[in-house]
């Protein structure tokens, strides 16, 4: 019996074959689509919270203290791994993603220092200009601008938008491109408040933007070791670690959900397949009587199931690709965010699901089939 006859059953019973493939493809699509969307949250957070930390690190006061001690500042500035430690006032702004919000950095520093950062890390002004010294002006990464739905010349801040994290009202003077997803300004409203409280802003360090002399890792190792009750360092390694801790429980939950879905859908697919193979018992009975071994029949059944699952998997991925492309263009791009259409992790989840389908359906089908007395079928007992 030629192998090509193998799929003739499904070609002759298209409704059954299509409904099986449709259910499995829909499962693949659901899992790929949802896990890709969830991955996009992690990507957005990573981009907004971590991207700039690939070039430099922040040091800021913690534990009730509003500024860094002179000793800490001096220690950092004099370290061999540090090129320069720029005094900054670090604030945060809201970054939107489709499931909610996260935070992005806004660093307030001298105009000249901003210029140096732009030169050292290849940040390019694509529109407008850098903010002037001592002004309530900002230059923002172009993707951040897109995310907020703002343009150069617009104003933003809590005085303009109640949902905004950063106090006050700032004018956006320019947009820039590069790896550092953040905004730079020269004067913050918090600085104004602190000055009104009598703080000598010029001789007080509220935070540092620290650049490496040679490699970032060596500098970050020093900064991580230096963190204590009053000072914390936002380094690449720390940020990644924190992000992983925060998302690990979500990732685990996602994995559990995927497995539960896979097993549930496998049960449904098993029931349909069992009906199909029960209906075909006469076919298997006559083949056995003619002289085909049970092992040959098993191999054919297994090959049919694997082929069905594979076709469903490919179809599910194609549908996912189409939908994700649509969502990326219509939802994510206008928000200045990335949606990765090809995700290894999402692909792996679908492979896990398909593997569960194959194993469960083969086991159930073959175990039932193995117990059948094929000759009893021929005898029509």
């Amino acid at each position, binding site marked *: *019996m*030629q192998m090509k*006859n193998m799929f*003739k*059953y499904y*070609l*002759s*019973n298209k409704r059954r074959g299509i409904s099986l493939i449709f259910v499995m493809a829909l499962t693949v699509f659901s899992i790929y689509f949802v896990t890709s969307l969830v991955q996009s949250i992690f990507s957005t957070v990573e981009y907004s919270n971590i991207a700039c930390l690939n070039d430099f690190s922040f040091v800021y006061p913690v534990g009730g203290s509003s500024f860094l001690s002179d000793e800490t500042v001096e220690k950092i500035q004099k370290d061999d791994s540090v090129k320069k430690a720029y005094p900054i006032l670090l604030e945060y702004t809201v970054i939107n993603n489709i499931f909610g919000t996260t935070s992005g950095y806004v660093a307030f520093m001298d105009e000249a220092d901003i210029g140096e950062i732009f030169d050292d890390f290849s940040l390019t002004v694509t529109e407008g200009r850098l903010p002037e010294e001592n002004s309530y002006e900002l230059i923002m990464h172009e993707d951040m601008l897109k995310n907020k739905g703002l343009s150069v010349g617009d104003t933003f801040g809590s005085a303009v938008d109640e949902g905004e994290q950063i106090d006050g009202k700032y004018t956006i003077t320019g947009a820039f491109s590069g790896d550092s997803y953040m905004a730079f300004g020269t004067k913050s409203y918090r600085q104004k408040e602190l000055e009104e409280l009598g703080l000598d802003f010029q001789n007080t360090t509220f935070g540092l933007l620290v650049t490496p002399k040679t490699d970032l890792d060596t500098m970050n190792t020093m900064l991580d070791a230096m963190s204590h009750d009053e000072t914390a360092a936002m380094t690449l390694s720390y940020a990644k670690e924190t992000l992983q801790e925060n998302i690990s429980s979500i990732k685990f939950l996602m994995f559990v959900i995927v497995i539960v879905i896979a097993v549930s859908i496998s049960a449904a697919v098993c029931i349909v397949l069992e009906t199909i193979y029960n209906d075909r018992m*006469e*076919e298997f*009975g*006559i*083949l*056995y*009587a*003619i*002289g*085909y*071994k049970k092992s040959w029949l098993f191999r054919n059944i297994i090959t049919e199931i694997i082929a069905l699952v594979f076709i469903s998997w490919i179809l599910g991925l194609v549908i996912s690709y189409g939908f994700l492309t649509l969502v990326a263009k219509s939802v994510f791009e206008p928000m200045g965010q990335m949606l990765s259409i090809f995700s290894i992790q999402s692909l792996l989840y679908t492979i896990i699901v398909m593997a569960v389908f194959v194993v469960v359906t083969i086991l159930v089908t073959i175990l039932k089939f193995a117990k059948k007395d094929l*000759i009893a079928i*021929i*005898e*029509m007992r």
Partner: protein
Amino acid sequence: MLGVKNIDLEYIDGRTKRTIFSNVSFDIHSGEFVSLLGPSGSGKSSLLYIVSLLKTPTAGEIYLDDVMISGAKNKNEIRYENFGFVFQHHFLIPHLTVLENVCTASYEKNVEKQAKDLLERLGLKDLINQKPYRLSGGERQRVAIARAVVKKPRILFADEPTASLDHHTAQEIMTIFSELQENTTVVCATHDYGILPQTARILRIEDGKVVEDDKTGGNE
């Protein structure tokens, strides 16, 4: 050619042991048309299934060319190499065409040509691309016969092959079996004496025993 020695068949029915037949022995020679004749429930089908290695007896041996095959581990291979089967029900695979059904009998890649020739001989040339549901009962049974003989088996086993057919069609089927007898030994289980060919050897089965071994044949 085919030796049947001291075959017993028993089974447990609830708490009772039922004996279908006991101590049945006979030989079948090459080129014979052997009919296992008996009423319903006489055990003729069971005997046919045992002789053709589809069923295992409670006791006894089956020999093919003096080689014991009843205890063989490769019964599937022996059936494939030597036997063909026609049953009361045609068991054609519904999603395959007539030609594809006949070709299922053999692993060989060149079986298609032989299948077409055979189907033409059986008057089914115009139906080779049809699915079984479009065929009449007699046509389906002829396809089943084609499937059984396409790889030229040494022995063709037929279990009540005409039971669900009208008399005229049944006679046609028996005529085909007689023609096949030239190259194939035929063993046929049936309760209908009236359709057997004249040259048939009749083994009458009653009460679990072969009560008659008539080599003088049946009716035309």
